[in-house]
């Protein structure tokens, strides 16, 4: 291989350096120690609309129509040329005659190379105006989503309010005691869903804290169905925890039905006592129970009537893959709804994993 004479090698090295600068895809300038442009990338000319004649050999601050003559730009270049500092990600606003205000990010560096007599600066200039605008659009969209969600929740709350009001209004106006009872039950069911909506709106998340939810639910039922609060108490016990909104709406409806049922049948003729709603987590499994210390179940099984409430509880329990058990509590009755998916042998492990993930209370 033939060795080039030194002068040819020097020329080759210089033209390589120039070619590197000119072909840079992001805007790049090579300056001398007096801040004159030695070379500029073609991309610089395109992005900032400066013709090549206005660039090479001219002072950098006089490029274009003088829009680059910005005091901060001058001082950061002077600092770089004197070797005081390397400039990393300096932000600058350029008032471009054709394109308006441009947000720039500037990197400037004094090059270290063999020729000590000629100072050279490398200046990379990125125009981030459009990227920043895109980010803003994304942030705005996110904010818009939150507002929309709030609006939807507000409408749901309003609609539930109207439905509950209509039911109660009808209950007031009807002449029949039986119909009134049914309408009041329906009102309690709607309010059970309503209590959940309030909890969801309060947290702003998809999960619900069970304790306050059940407590507010029971308070609402007690207020509308217990006439003598001194003799009959309704309380909530159990561990605190969060549970998915879709599951808690079913749990709330089950609690509503079981409490209404206990209020109707366990304490006849003004009998006093207490009803306890309890919820226990055991990992992904849980047990919801409603116990009373009332008169207990009828001894004659044929006397047990299965009303709408019972069928609602059965249907919801099935939906939650849970089992309903009714037992004598001596005194009174205890109805429990137990979900124990994990104890079963999983036919499909992936399905099981999904179910567990969905039903595990978020920490």
């Amino acid at each position, binding site marked *: 291989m033939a060795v080039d004479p030194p002068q040819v090698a020097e020329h080759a090295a210089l033209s390589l350096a120039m070619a590197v600068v000119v072909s840079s895809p992001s805007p790049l300038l090579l300056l001398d120690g007096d801040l004159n442009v030695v070379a500029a990338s073609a991309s610089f000319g395109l992005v900032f609309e400066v013709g090549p004649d206005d660039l090479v050999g001219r002072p950098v601050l006089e490029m274009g129509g003088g829009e680059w003559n910005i005091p901060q730009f001058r001082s950061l270049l002077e600092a770089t040329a004197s070797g005081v500092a390397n400039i990393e990600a300096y932000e600058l606003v350029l008032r471009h005659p054709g394109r308006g205000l441009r947000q720039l990010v500037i990197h400037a560096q004094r090059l270290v190379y063999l020729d000590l007599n000629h100072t050279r600066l490398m200046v990379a200039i990125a125009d981030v105006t459009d990227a920043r605008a895109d980010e803003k659009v994304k942030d705005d969209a996110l904010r818009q989503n939150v507002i929309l969600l*709030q609006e939807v929740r507000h409408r749901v709350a309003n609609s539930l309010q109207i439905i509950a*009001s209509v039911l109660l209004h009808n209950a007031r106006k009807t002449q029949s005691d039986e119909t009134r009872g049914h309408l009041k039950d329906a009102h309690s069911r709607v309010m059970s869903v309503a209590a959940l909506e309030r909890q969801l709106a309060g947290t702003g998340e998809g999960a619900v804290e069970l304790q306050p939810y059940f407590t507010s639910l029971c*308070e609402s039922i007690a207020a509308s169905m217990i006439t003598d609060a001194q003799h009959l108490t309704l309380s909530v016990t159990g561990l605190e925890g969060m549970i998915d909104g879709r599951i808690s709406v079913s749990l709330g409806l089950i609690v509503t039905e079981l409490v209404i049922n206990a209020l109707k049948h366990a304490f006849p003729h003004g009998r006093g006592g207490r009803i306890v709603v309890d919820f226990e987590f055991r990992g992904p499994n849980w047990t919801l129970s409603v116990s009373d210390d009332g008169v207990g179940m009828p001894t004659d099984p044929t006397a047990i009537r299965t009303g709408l409430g019972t069928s609602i509880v059965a249907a919801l329990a099935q939906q939650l893959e849970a089992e309903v058990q009714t037992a004598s509590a001596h005194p009174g009755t205890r109805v429990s709804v137990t979900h124990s998916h994990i104890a079963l042998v999983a036919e499909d492990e992936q399905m099981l994993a999904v179910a567990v993930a969905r039903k595990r209370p978020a920490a």
Partner: protein
Amino acid sequence: MNALRKPGPTLLIVEDEVLAAMALRDELEEAGYNVLNLTGHHQTALASAEAFTPDLALVNIQLDGRDDGIALAEDLKALGVPVLFISGQVSRARSAETVAIASLPKPYSVTDAVMAVNYLLALMSGDDSLPRPRILEVFDLPGIRPRSDAA
């Protein structure tokens, strides 16, 4: 429910959803309150408040047309009428806690609403023995002007 005043405390309900307003009125009347004519308008509500000086105004935040319950609450406060927000817009209600004394978020049951009114009226007359409904959020009571200043 109109100009005829009975002995019980007087309430003003300002709510654009007429069915919700009617159910609330019926329950409050049953509980012995005097409820002024229902309205969902700022100006009508204000005129009613000026004429009858209710003991408490139950105000929804979203009202008829472009009327806003928070603006109304400011005007009612200036008249010395304490305001209880009844709205699902909980965060807006909270942001206006200086013009109202409490917030009952929708959806509420009317029995909760009656308990809330009982509780607040008792509290304003210095009696804090009544139970506070769990869903009622009470703001700073210094927000109320004593009734004697209202006249």
